[in-house]
């Protein structure tokens, strides 16, 4: 029956809900109904559901405390399957048709939770108990304690599978960012928007209006919500204003940067097509107005966590905004003038008020009048000493001013300890708030540059003050951004009474909670102080006060005040612990955006990629590139078979490999040669035109930065290559040298890696293939175009190309480069042109095998810890001339002949395999660092030789040729005897490449 009416506790009239529509939803085993405009919390309360969860440690029954994002108790698990979300605050969930929610942290059910036994264990599990327990016996930790703790820990269950929704990350630039769309924020946006500035107005709620939606205040002769709707309508009509409801600005960063998360589709069963579930906005604002309001806090008294104890402001929100009576008989408890408002609103909605308990000995007349009008006694100078009940509140004990006590039967206690301005964002950049005794609040310290704090966030609770401050700040912000405007007319608004007295806690026997979500009690704070952890930062971490997902929004100040009292220090001295982003929890999905799976980072494809895919190449990620590792043929079941075939193909006939990823750097200028001589070992000024030279570049510390080639295409034109992995770094390094060290040199550096498709054609029959590719008229004979020659030619029928005789395989080899748009066609053409020669496509694996067979150093040898000497290139280091790295390369330790130098190795037992990373030991010596002589850097199976080979660095280097060493690999549990040899296994004289 309740499902048909939207709840038995729904008021007959009022509220900002759409009564004509009904939404059905589930909570645990119950089916309920609510209305559009309801939150899950308001709909549950309308249906009489008071018990919504069990607390973290003691498994105490808990109900809804608040009506906003500060909620610590009503954490539910929302949705099912791969969209399941734990720890969602029911107070901010907009219900939708078919919503499924479940309570958390209880077994087997919310009403009968076995975990409640923890409540009895209370004396044994105070704050910090885990620092002193579970230590003995030590063996029990892994087998017993840890698994138990793991099962008991945590508050919700994450979804089992990948999130099926999409998330977006977007950028936004504006002149004025207004955070919060309550009275102050709306006026600020209006002033700035009318002045013509680009305004962004963000509010975490789904409806603009802030506190106006929860109170009965009249603005300009109409209801608060109606006025807010009118302003929102005008703002929506301005093209220069962007409204972002359902958007929480959660972080402030340097440079006027803000982060916000927009819950685009959280209120829908599934996101519509091509709509993200949530959107992360990175906002850059010239000026900001923080109108984030204030958050109410409760009072610490025994039983204050019982379902039915709610914040007074939340009670008013449920009455006025959601037309829900959170109880039938209420007690109002506070030490500020909100007591009057609360009593009045309760009475107006037909809720009986059992008493108004005001801790102040002499509350203002307005409170007495409101109590009287509600037909309730006013107990001045009195406090509640206990809230009674288990899963439901049954009553409250009062201690009167004269010391006597009463019992008040009630099912709702509306508590107000006061309001704390929402200043979290102001201290994200490190500024500390300061205590304002008059307002009993911490106010913002120095706000981030460009931010103004207004309204309740600045400690001004009166509606007329909020409107005025907001308008002024909005106008000033627009003016600072260059837009002159006019102050909007301020509508009539109430100036609410704001009398207040401090009321942090009531001293009485019983468990009194300070932090609801982490179950931190008043006694825990006393314990922390006794044990020497009473300073604010220590107490927070020792008791976990304020460390839950609500970040202590409703309890931190009470905790701080209790600590101050325990330590005899003024509250002002205990500044709040640092606020850090995010202000409220942000999903990983929103932070990741589309950067998941294959879209995590961009992939770079070679010009021959489409063709390689057709040839069923197996690809491997090589940095950001996807490169063909090998091209398996039908019937080849493991990669070694394919690689062996490819190597044979190259060494016996001719092979084709895409080498486009190797970095190409265009260096031109009158000073190009002298620039290059300053940054590398090559004497470029003496390099003839049309010649390729092996290139080595050193770092400032004397180690090798990278190797590559330098080709002289003209007197003032060089083309460098660099290894795929290092080219980005090499280009930046060269640009730095040019701009920071020698800006007077005439040299232009351009990374042209992308511009050219480059293919290696290598093998004894390579010349035959190239003769068909290159246009007639170019002499390819060995005399005319010998090893290490280079030329600009025409190929494939008139296409401008560059031809190089470079050989990474050690065979007769060419590399031909064409503009990258021709790359796909060129690779197909080469396959056709080489068909008669039996041309074989080969990939990274075969290329790597062949270069090890030739002893050419690559990434594993040029690892940043080796010098030119170590690699066997000492002769390349010029005696004259200044080049980067020269001085440090001459350090005694780097020229020590005992430094490990490059050698080759092969297993004595030719059937064994070698692994890179094994370390060299003298036979008979123990495996220790003291006996370590070096390590194996590269290893492979050589199809050409039929056994494993490797390269490595060995102390004493080539002096050990012929000797036997042990290659020990304790990580993989192997030890092999190896024979040291020169680091070239195939054609040591290099005749094939020079043929």
């Amino acid at each position, binding site marked *: 029956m309740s499902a048909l009416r939207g709840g038995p506790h729904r008021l007959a009239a009022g509220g900002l809900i759409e009564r004509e529509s009904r939404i059905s939803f589930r909570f645990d085993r119950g089916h309920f109904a609510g209305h559009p405009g309801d939150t899950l919390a308001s709909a549950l309360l309308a249906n009489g559901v008071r018990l919504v969860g069990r607390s973290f440690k003691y498994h105490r029954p808990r109900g809804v405390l608040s009506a906003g994002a500060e909620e610590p108790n009503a954490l539910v698990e929302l949705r099912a399957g791969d969209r399941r979300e734990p720890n969602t605050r029911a107070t901010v969930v907009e219900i939708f048709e078919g919503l499924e929610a479940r309570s958390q942290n209880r077994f087997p059910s919310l009403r009968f939770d076995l975990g409640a036994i923890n409540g009895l264990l209370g004396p044994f599990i105070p704050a910090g108990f885990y620092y002193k327990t579970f230590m003995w016996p030590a063996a029990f930790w892994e087998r017993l304690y840890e698994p138990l703790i793991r099962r008991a820990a945590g508050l919700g269950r994450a979804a089992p599978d990948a999130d099926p929704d999409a998330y977006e990350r977007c*950028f936004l630039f504006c002149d004025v960012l207004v955070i919060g769309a309550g009275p102050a924020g709306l006026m600020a946006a209006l002033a700035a928007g009318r002045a013509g500035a680009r305004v962004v107005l963000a509010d975490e709620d789904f409806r603009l209006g802030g506190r106006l939606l929860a109170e009965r205040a009249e603005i300009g002769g109409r209801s608060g919500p109606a006025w807010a709707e009118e302003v929102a309508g005008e703002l929506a009509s301005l093209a220069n204003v962007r409204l972002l409801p359902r958007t929480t600005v959660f972080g402030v960063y340097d440079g006027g940067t803000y982060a916000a998360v927009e819950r685009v589709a959280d209120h829908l069963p599934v996101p519509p097509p*091509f709509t993200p579930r949530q959107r992360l906005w990175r906002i850059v604002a010239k000026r900001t107005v923080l109108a984030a309001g204030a958050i109410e806090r409760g009072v610490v008294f025994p039983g204050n966590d019982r379902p039915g104890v709610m914040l007074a402001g939340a009670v008013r929100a449920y009455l006025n905004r959601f037309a829900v009576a959170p109880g039938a008989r209420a007690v109002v408890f506070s030490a500020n003038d909100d007591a009057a408002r609360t009593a009045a609103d309760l009475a107006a909605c037909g809720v009986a008020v059992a008493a108004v308990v005001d801790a102040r000995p002499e509350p203002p007349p307005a409170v007495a009048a409101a109590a009287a009008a509600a037909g309730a006694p006013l107990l001045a100078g009195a406090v509640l000493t206990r809230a009674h009940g288990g899963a439901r509140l049954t009553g409250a004990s009062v201690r009167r001013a004269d010391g006597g006590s009463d019992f008040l039967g009630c099912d709702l206690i509306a508590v107000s300890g006061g309001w704390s301005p929402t200043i979290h964002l102001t201290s994200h950049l490190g500024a500390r708030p300061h205590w304002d005794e008059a307002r009993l609040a911490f106010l913002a310290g120095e706000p981030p540059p460009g931010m103004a704090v207004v309204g309740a966030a600045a400690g001004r609770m009166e509606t007329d003050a909020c409107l005025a401050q907001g308008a002024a700040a909005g106008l000033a912000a627009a003016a600072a951004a260059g837009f002159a405007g006019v102050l909007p007319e301020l509508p009539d608004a109430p100036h609410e009474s704001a009398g207040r007295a401090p009321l942090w806690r009531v001293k009485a026997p019983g468990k009194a909670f300070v932090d609801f979500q982490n179950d931190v009690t008043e006694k825990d704070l006393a314990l922390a102080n006794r044990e020497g952890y009473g300073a604010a930062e220590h107490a927070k971490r020792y008791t976990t006060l304020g460390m839950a997902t609500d970040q202590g929004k409703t309890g931190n100040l009470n905790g701080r005040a209790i600590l101050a009292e325990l330590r005899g220090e003024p509250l002002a001295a205990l500044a709040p612990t640092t606020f850090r982003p995010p202000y409220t929890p942000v999903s990983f999905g929103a932070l990741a955006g*589309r950067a998941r799976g294959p879209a995590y980072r961009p992939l770079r494809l070679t010009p021959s990629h*489409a063709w390689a895919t057709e040839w069923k190449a197996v690809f491997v990620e090589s940095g950001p590139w996807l490169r063909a590792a090998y091209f398996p043929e039908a019937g080849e079941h493991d990669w070694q078979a394919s690689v062996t075939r490819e190597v044979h193909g190259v060494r016996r006939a001719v092979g084709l490999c895409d080498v486009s990823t190797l970095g190409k750097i265009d260096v031109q200028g009158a000073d190009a040669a002298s620039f290059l001589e300053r940054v590398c070992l090559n004497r470029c000024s003496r390099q003839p035109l049309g010649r390729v030279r092996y290139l080595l570049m050193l770092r400032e510390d004397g180690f090798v930065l990278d190797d590559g080639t330098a080709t002289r295409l003209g007197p003032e034109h060089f083309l460098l290559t660099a290894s795929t992995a290092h080219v980005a770094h090499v280009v930046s390094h060269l640009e730095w040298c040019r701009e920071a060290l020698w800006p007077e040199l005439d040299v232009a550096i351009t990374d042209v890696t992308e511009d050219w498709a480059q293919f290696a054609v290598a093998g004894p029959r390579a010349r035959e293939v190239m003769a*068909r590719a290159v246009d*007639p008229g170019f002499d390819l004979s060995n005399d005319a175009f010998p090893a290490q020659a280079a030329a600009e030619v025409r190929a*494939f029928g008139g296409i*401008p190309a560059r031809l190089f005789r470079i050989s990474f395989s050690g065979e007769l080899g060419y590399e031909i480069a064409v503009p990258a*748009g021709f*790359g796909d066609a060129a690779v197909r053409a080469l396959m056709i042109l080489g068909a008669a020669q039996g041309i074989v496509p080969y990939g990274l694996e075969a290329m790597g095998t062949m270069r090890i067979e030739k002893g050419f150093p690559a990434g594993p040898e040029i690892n940043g810890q080796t010098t030119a000497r170590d690699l066997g290139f000492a002769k390349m280091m010029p005696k004259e001339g200044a080049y980067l790295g020269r001085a440090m390369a001459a350090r005694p330790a780097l020229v020590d002949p005992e430094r490990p130098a490059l050698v080759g190795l092969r297993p004595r037992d030719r059937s064994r395999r070698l692994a890179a990373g094994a370390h060299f030991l003298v036979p008979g010596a123990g495996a220790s660092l003291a006996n370590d002589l070096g390590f194996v850097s590269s290893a492979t199976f050589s199809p050409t030789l039929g056994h494993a080979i490797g390269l490595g660095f060995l102390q004493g280097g080539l002096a050990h040729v012929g000797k036997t060493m042990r290659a020990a690999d304790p990580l993989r549990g192997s030890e092999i005897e190896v024979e040291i040899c020169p680091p070239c296994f195939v054609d040591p004289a290099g005749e094939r490449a020079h043929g």
Partner: protein
Amino acid sequence: MADPAVPLHVPLHWRAALGPRPHQREGRAEGAAGVALREQTGFALFEVCARPGQGEGLAARLGAAFGLPVALPRTGLGDARAALLWSGPGRWRLLGTPGRLDRATLAAACAGGGWFTDRRGGFGWISVSGPAAAEALGRAVPVDLHPRTFGFGDVVLTTADHIPLQIWQSAPAPCYELLFPRSSAGSFWAWLIDQMAGFGVAVG
């Protein structure tokens, strides 16, 4: 020498950075498309780098040689067939139809003032237009493309999700040209479609 007996399709086919792509709708299908994307291909592109201290003079000579407005920093103007785009301190990209931009004229304009290299293979080029182009692209890139700060003739160099990107506005109405590295074309296109899918994309 080349064997005429072997059949080979010449001249070789030039492959656009995005490769063959069907003309279709992407993203939201209902209603008119908010964004239109079109790949430009077969264009000539030279990158020019000025000698120290010669930047202004070289820019003026390039403009004069090809009948294009001088490209001040962060500007790029041209017509449908050629554009001169500022591409960094002392750097410009000359972009357009091959007939309009010939090497010889360029070499003459650069003589003594700067150095150039042919970069036509290195890039992809997409034109973005449509009623939602400004909003869709503005959200997607980390620079402010609002008409008050970016308009006809402005050029920016930035990144799109780790991919280098050059953007210029080629018409008074919001109509943007995007230049990006060829090898990242696939990832770039995926990013672009994802960002704009909600607005409805017509691929032409």
